[in-house]
Structure formats: structure tokens, C-alpha cells
């Protein structure tokens, strides 16, 4: 089953679907005339196309500095080629395994912990009978999605502070040991569960949309046959939204390495660097923090990450097709 057949809101679906344009079977000789007649429409497209070329395609062209030794004086195409030297430098570097390990653990933890929760939330919301209750819960739980990363991290820093934060006050009040939740022992948990706070409600939307497509008559029939709620969820709702679950899982795995860069950077401090230094932040540090900016090296690092992400996406897709007969492509 391809993604176009999934009749619900999948983030990737619009992207893929947008490319689906039906062919008109008109003869070729009319093409020139049709192009000429549509010149006003093409003119409308000029500003957005110019924006796309300058700010999206030109950087793609600039990505070649990953294989060059970029210097400001020589520019992108003038700097000397060095082949894969930058990539090799990264793979052989002292930090390589640390950042790879940190990236995989942090994102793997996030994926495993946060993938099932929106599904559960959506199923719970879907079976709520009071429309008002369901809407109130949705309204409130979507809200954190619209709050900035800086504010979320700020709230974490303030509320979890070992120096008078409310959480540590509560722990102290209950007789527990106060904790520094941004230290290397806690960093991953704090990162993942503050992410849960921010994204759970919103991530449930897609499953709610899928659940609304499940035929209510199936439920009625099962009810008459004496199936209780839990059994009906297990045998009707879950199989009904399985395709969406697979698509979301594949997409999450594909973007697994690149998500959360800004948040990790904001939460980083010298005390948690040993677990919080991920590929993205390392690349950022090489380019912008070190006294001698190594743009080529940094670009090679992020290219390495993109390629790894693509491999993950493809292998997740392959696994999904093997296991459930559902896949994205």
C-alpha cells in the first residue's frame, strides 16, 4: 500500500501527493501556445522561484565545500578540492564515536518512548463520549506545540532548577534527594520527557484523523457480539490505523538524526556535554564556536548525518514492508 492510499493527514502525504498531477492528453503542438498564453501565471511564479533558487538551491550547490577546503577569500567554487578528506577526518576523529553514540541513544530513546504515546492518547480521546471534554483536552494539550523552544527550555531550567525550582522543592518536601536535572545523569530523560510535554497532544492529531475513518458499524457489530471496549480497540481501531502508524514510524526514523538540534543546543551546558554532544551540535561547534571556523569540515559532518538519515529511512521502509506489508515507498 502506498502512501497516496492512506486517506488521512500524514505530514509526508501532502508532499508526495503534491507531485501527483494527472497528465492531460493534449497534443504536443499546442504546448508552445499554452505556455505563451500562461505567461502571466509564470510571472506570478517568479518571486517564489527566485527565493527558492537563492536560499535553497544555491546552498545545495554550496554543499560541495564538504569536498573542498573552503576559504573565505577563495569562495565556494574557488577553494581547492580535497576529495573525502573532511569526511575521513570526521570518521577518524577522537569525538566520532561519542557523538554517534550520543545521537543514536538520544534519538532512539525519544523514538521508543514517544512513538506509542500519541497513539494511546488518540485512542483514549476517540472513545470519549462528551464532545466538550474531548475538545477541552485537545485544546489544552495542543498548546505547547506553539510555544518556542527557548521558552520550553527556559521553563525546564526554571522549574527543574536545583536552586529553588518547584520540582526539586517537591522532591525535597517528600524527603528525596534534590537532583540537577540538566546534569549528565538526567539530561536524556529531561530532554525526552519535556519533549513529550510539548509534542504529545499535537502528534495525536494524525491518529485521531485516522481513527475517524474507522467504520463505526464495525464497532456496533462487535458490540452486539459482546466485545468490550478494550477488545474492540485492539481488534478494530488498532488494525484500522496501522498504515498510519507505519508511515509515521518510518518518517520519524528518517528524521531521527536531525530533529531537536535547537533544543539540544539550548539545553547543553559543560556538565552534560559528555551525553549531549550530538552530530548537529558538534558540526555547529566546529563551524561557529571554534576560534578557527572549519566550514568545510562542518559541512562534511552534516552531510554525513544526512546520508545516515537517508539510510535509516530506507532501511526502516524495507523493514516495515517485510513486517507489515505497509511501506512509504
Amino acid at each position, binding site marked *: 500500500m502506498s502512501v497516496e492510499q492512506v486517506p488521512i493527514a500524514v505530514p509526508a502525504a501532502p508532499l508526495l501527493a503534491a507531485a501527483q498531477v494527472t497528465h492531460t492528453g493534449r497534443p504536443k503542438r499546442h504546448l508552445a501556445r499554452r505556455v505563451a498564453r500562461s505567461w502571466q501565471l509564470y510571472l506570478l511564479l517568479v518571486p517564489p522561484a527566485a527565493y527558492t533558487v537563492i536560499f535553497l538551491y544555491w546552498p545545495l550547490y*554550496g554543499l560541495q565545500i564538504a569536498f573542498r577546503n573552503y576559504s573565505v577569500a577563495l569562495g565556494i567554487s574557488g577553494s581547492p578540492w580535497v576529495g573525502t578528506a573532511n569526511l575521513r577526518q570526521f570518521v577518524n576523529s577522537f569525538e566520532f564515536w561519542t557523538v554517534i553514540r550520543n545521537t543514536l541513544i538520544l534519538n532512539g530513546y525519544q523514538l521508543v518512548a514517544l512513538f506509542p504515546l500519541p497513539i494511546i492518547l488518540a485512542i483514549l480521546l476517540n472513545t470519549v463520549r462528551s464532545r466538550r471534554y474531548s475538545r477541552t483536552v485537545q485544546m489544552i494539550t495542543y498548546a505547547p506545540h*506553539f510555544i518556542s523552544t527557548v521558552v520550553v527550555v527556559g521553563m525546564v531550567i526554571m522549574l527543574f532548577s536545583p536552586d529553588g525550582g518547584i520540582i526539586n522543592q517537591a522532591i525535597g518536601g517528600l524527603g528525596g534527594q534534590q537532583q540537577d536535572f540538566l546534569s549528565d545523569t538526567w539530561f536524556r530523560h529531561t530532554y525526552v520527557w519535556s519533549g513529550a510535554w510539548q509534542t504529545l497532544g499535537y502528534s495525536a492529531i494524525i491518529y485521531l*484523523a485516522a481513527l475517524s475513518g474507522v467504520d463505526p458499524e464495525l464497532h456496533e457489530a462487535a458490540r452486539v457480539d459482546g466485545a468490550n471496549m478494550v477488545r474492540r480497540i485492539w481488534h478494530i481501531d488498532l488494525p484500522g490505523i496501522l498504515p498510519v502508524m507505519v508511515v509515521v514510524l518510518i518518517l520519524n526514523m528518517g528524521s531521527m538524526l536531525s530533529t531537536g538540534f535547537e533544543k539540544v543546543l539550548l539545553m547543553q551546558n559543560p556538565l552534560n556535554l559528555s551525553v549531549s554532544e550530538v552530530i548537529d551540535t558538534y558540526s555547529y561547534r566546529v563551524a561557529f564556536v571554534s576560534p578557527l571556523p572549519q566550514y568545510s569540515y562542518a559541512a562534511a559532518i552534516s552531510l554525513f548525518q544526512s546520508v545516515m538519515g537517508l539510510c535509516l529511512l530506507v532501511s526502516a521502509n524495507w523493514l516495515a514492508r517485510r513486517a507489515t506489508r505497509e511501506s512509504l515507498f
Partner: protein
Amino acid sequence: MGVSTRRRPHVADSTGDRAYYIINYSVLAMFTLSVLYPLVYVLSSSFSRTSAITSGSVKLWPVGLSLDAYKTIWHSPQLVTGFLNSVFYAVAGAIVGTVLTVLAGYPLSRSDLPFRRILTFFFLIPTLFSAGIIPTYLIVRQLGLLNTRWAIILPGAMTVFNLIITRAFYQLSVPKELLEAARVDGASDFRFFVQVALPLSKPIIAVNLLFYAIAQWNGWFSAFIYLTNEHLYPLQLVLREILAQSSVDPSSIQGSNIAELMQKKQLFDKLKYALIVVAMVPPLIAYPFVQKHFIKGALIGSLK
């Protein structure tokens, strides 16, 4: 608001189902309260008496009403500038982003546009393979945009997601018959776009404006790498710098006694709470208006 479905029970609930509902409603209530609590706590703290925060007496509601944190913000030129910069970036980003999105979305929605498929791919490809931070930074620098307001507004001005929902909106809400009728009357594509399509697309224009404004308001990273001039900093970046300081600037407290120092640290904590409130309230006010359209848009986009 939001996606919701309802099943009308025709048969009486079994005991098991009743237990299910009790658990369901309580889990949802607990989750909702735990989402709500930090927001309320931050709001309450920002309005509380300064000493009440450090003593830990603020639990849920404000303890002893005081506005001095907000007064401090109001009297700090750095914070007021940050706020005004954020407003500027939000408004400018919303306008630039919406104009680009509508200009791209309308022609791409026209099924009679030759090469529509290729053009759509042209806009999609960079989302699938994006170049990353460093090449983009080098281009922005090469264009001489570093340390200008343009560096915040232009890179990332248009997002493909908005383009898709806008294009879908035009496909669904501007009937072909209208276009044909206008053609018979001799209207050009320009005239049809300005006089028919644009007025019909007010809702999607509003959604675009709000989306881009929220994104700009919440953004800090482009300011972080493209700007060094503090007078151009948006509020989020100022907030980040302040949060990064664990306490008051040591140079400003030299010579003061312990009691004064304590008081400053307490006020500083409260100031952080108040700043968090200022930075998060605008998107929270705006989001209920976008949310409905967002879901609708996402559904349209995928169905199409």
C-alpha cells in the same frame, strides 16, 4: 475545535466498559493537568511577591500580587527593543512569507498550467534534500545579509507545508467554472487572480499570516548565527541569553551586601518567569485561530 468523533451507545455499558471509561477519563484529566500546570505555575510566579518564589510558597496561584517584574521589563531598553524587534520580524516575516506562498500556490493550483508537475517538484526538492546550516550561512554571508534584519526574514521565508495547503485551498475553493466565465468576459490571468482568486482566499491568507508570524516570533536560531548586533536581537534570543546567566551579572552587584544580593537574585528569577510569559503569550493567543485551519489544511493536503 480539533478532530473529534463520537459514538452513540445503543447498548448499555458492561461493567468492563464502565471501568474503561473511568480509567480513560482520569488518564486524560491527569495528562491535561500536567500539561497545564507548568504554564499556570510560570504565570503565577511572574505575578507573585518576590520573596514568595524563593521561599517556595507559590504552588499554583500567585502569592501576594506584584507587578514589579513586568515593570522591570518595561523599563529595560534591551527587553523593550527585543520585544519590538520580535514584533517587526513577525509582521515582516508574515507578509513576505504569505506573499511568496500565495504567488506560488495559485499558479501551481491551475490544472491548465503547462509544466505544473515539474514546477511543483522544483519547490519540493529542497525540502527532501536540504543543504544544512553551513552552506546556507555562507550564502547569507556572501549576499551581505549578515547583521541585517533581512537575514532573519529572508532565509526560510517560505515553507513548503504552507505552499501545499495554499495550493490545495485554491484547487478546492476556486471553481473552474468561475475561471471559464471570467475568460469568456475577457479577463486576463492577472485580473482573475486579483479580483476573484485573492478575495476568495481570505481564510488561507489569514492562516498563512498567522503561521509565519508564529514561526518568526518563536525563532531564535537564525538570529543566533546571523546577528552579532544586539540591537537587532529578537525577544527569544534575549530571553535565551538571560536564561543562560544563572544569576545576576557579578559586575552589577559588586559592593552590595548579602541581603541586597539575595533580593536581586530573587527579582532576577521572577524576571525570568515574566519574560517567559511575555515570550509565550502571543503564539498561545494566536494558535486557536490557526489550529482549526491547520487540521483542515492537513486533511485537504493529504487527500488531494
